[in-house]
């Protein structure tokens, strides 16, 4: 029971990180039908910036905020400089461009910061919370990870639902031609979408890096799991991204805990295959409904 609790809580914490990456991918996919393969690389890069700020200021929260702000800017810059020219071109062009951005970011990180593993401080203690003398198997930091991702997702949902900016974002995602006919400047809207995705990715980066160490490829595996979570959820559903992240996080935590860590990557593949066999468009996708 003790172990089960531990695996569950750790699964939720990692699941929320996958959910955040998945959410950032979904945001971009909905707006531009582009898969941003550089999402993990961007998160890695902003985590380096966060680490430098934390080391200089001695304050975790300054680094945290700077990382999110840099994620916002980096997302916008990548869209404007590199992705804009290949929007409305064959999809493969955008795939190659985003992979190119990933390679450049990882290369730059290696050149600037070196390839060695660096430890990254957590926001809160990593030791398990206790009720009386029973260890719950969940740390303050695990709770923080889950709360942080939930709060950001909730704020996003509120913005999408109740603001005119959100209305513009949704209209552009659903039907960009009609949005333009109604005077929506979709160029700005798409940049904003990438910026928000950059922010969420940066959040995932600073949240997960205490568990993985920081190095130029540190987000690669997290990105793959986040991508898997997004596909499980349906790739165009924000709710699906979060649920997909949690399913994958929990599943992989149980597989790693009970069957051994070597099987985690295989477990991720199995989860993906299973979902795609049962519901090829993902658990929460509305695409098939929309095409009727």
């Amino acid at each position, binding site marked *: 029971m003790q172990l089960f609790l531990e695996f569950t809580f750790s699964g939720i914490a990692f699941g929320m990180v996958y959910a955040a990456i998945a959410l950032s991918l979904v945001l971009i996919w909905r707006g531009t039908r582009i898969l941003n393969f550089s999402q993990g690389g961007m998160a890695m890069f902003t985590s380096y910036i966060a680490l430098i700020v934390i080391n200089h200021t001695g304050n975790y929260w300054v680094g945290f905020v700077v990382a999110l702000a840099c994620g916002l800017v980096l997302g916008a810059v990548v869209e404007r400089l590199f992705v804009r020219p290949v929007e409305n071109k064959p999809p493969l062009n955008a795939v190659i461009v985003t992979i190119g951005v990933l390679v450049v970011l990882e290369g730059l990180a290696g050149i600037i910061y070196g390839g060695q593993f660096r430890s990254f401080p957590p926001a809160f203690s990593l030791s398990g919370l206790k009720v009386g003398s029973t260890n719950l198997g969940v740390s303050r930091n695990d709770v923080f990870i889950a709360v942080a991702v939930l709060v950001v997702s909730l704020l996003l949902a509120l913005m999408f639902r109740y603001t*005119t900016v959100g*209305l*513009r974002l*949704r*209209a552009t995602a*659903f*039907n960009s*031609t*009609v*949005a*333009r*006919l*109604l*005077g*929506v*400047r*979709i160029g700005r809207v798409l940049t904003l979408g990438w910026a928000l995705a950059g922010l969420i990715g940066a959040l995932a980066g600073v949240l997960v890096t205490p568990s993985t160490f920081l190095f130029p490829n540190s987000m690669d595996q997290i990105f793959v799991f986040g991508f898997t979570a997004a596909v499980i959820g349906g790739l165009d559903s924000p709710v699906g991204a979060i649920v997909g992240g949690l399913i994958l996080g929990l599943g992989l935590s149980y597989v790693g805990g009970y069957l051994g860590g070597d099987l985690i990557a295989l477990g991720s593949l199995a989860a993906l295959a299973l979902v795609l066999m049962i519901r090829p468009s993902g658990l929460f996708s*509305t695409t098939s409904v*929309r095409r009727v």
Partner: protein
Amino acid sequence: MSNTVMTDTQALAVEEIVAGYGGVPVLDGVSIAAKAGTITAVLGANGAGKTTLLRTISGFVRPRHGRVLLGGTNLTRRHPEDIARAGVAHVPEGQGVITELTVEENLRLGALARRDRAGRADALNLAYRRFTVLSERRRRAAGTLSGGERQILVIARALMASPRVLLLDEPSLGLAPRMVAQVMDLIRQLRDDAGLTVLLVEQNARSALSIADHGLVLNLGKVVADASAAELAADVSLRRHYLGF
């Protein structure tokens, strides 16, 4: 049709437009002068260039030659979103509603192109007073509306921006005859009550000419007739060759 001379009463002028998607131009020297507060019907068979004409006016197709003028302002080669903000509302054929958004969200979206933010709420109230069917369904997803209700929604949404010119692409397409009459009646009301300038593209020539002041017939990208609606409707040979009624 040579160069069009702008006058005060001309809301929209299209001058000698040559435009298309590939090598062969779809529009080959088309000119239109739509007077303010009138309905101009643009008629012709499939492939005559009617939709391309509207897409050129609203900026989705860039003309190789010619100009589009709104009032005295040159709109040629501006982006669709800027042309919409300048006061041209284009209601595209068929799937114009954003089905995933609610009726009210569709309407609010239409008002975002307004210059006066304060007018947005008023426009919404006016739309609900004018179209009670939308008021009753305001919280429902637009995808749940019937074809006729959707057509009313896209027109209502276009009006949210208080446009100077309304471009309508086949508003009668796919509607039951009773709905067609209702939609035509609505377009007529918009001209009579609100003084709106309308460019009405239709295959249903009889319905369109019944409410239009002026009409043009396009054939293979050229204007083959340009006269008052009454004259066009009375021209038997034109009707037989191009209008099909």
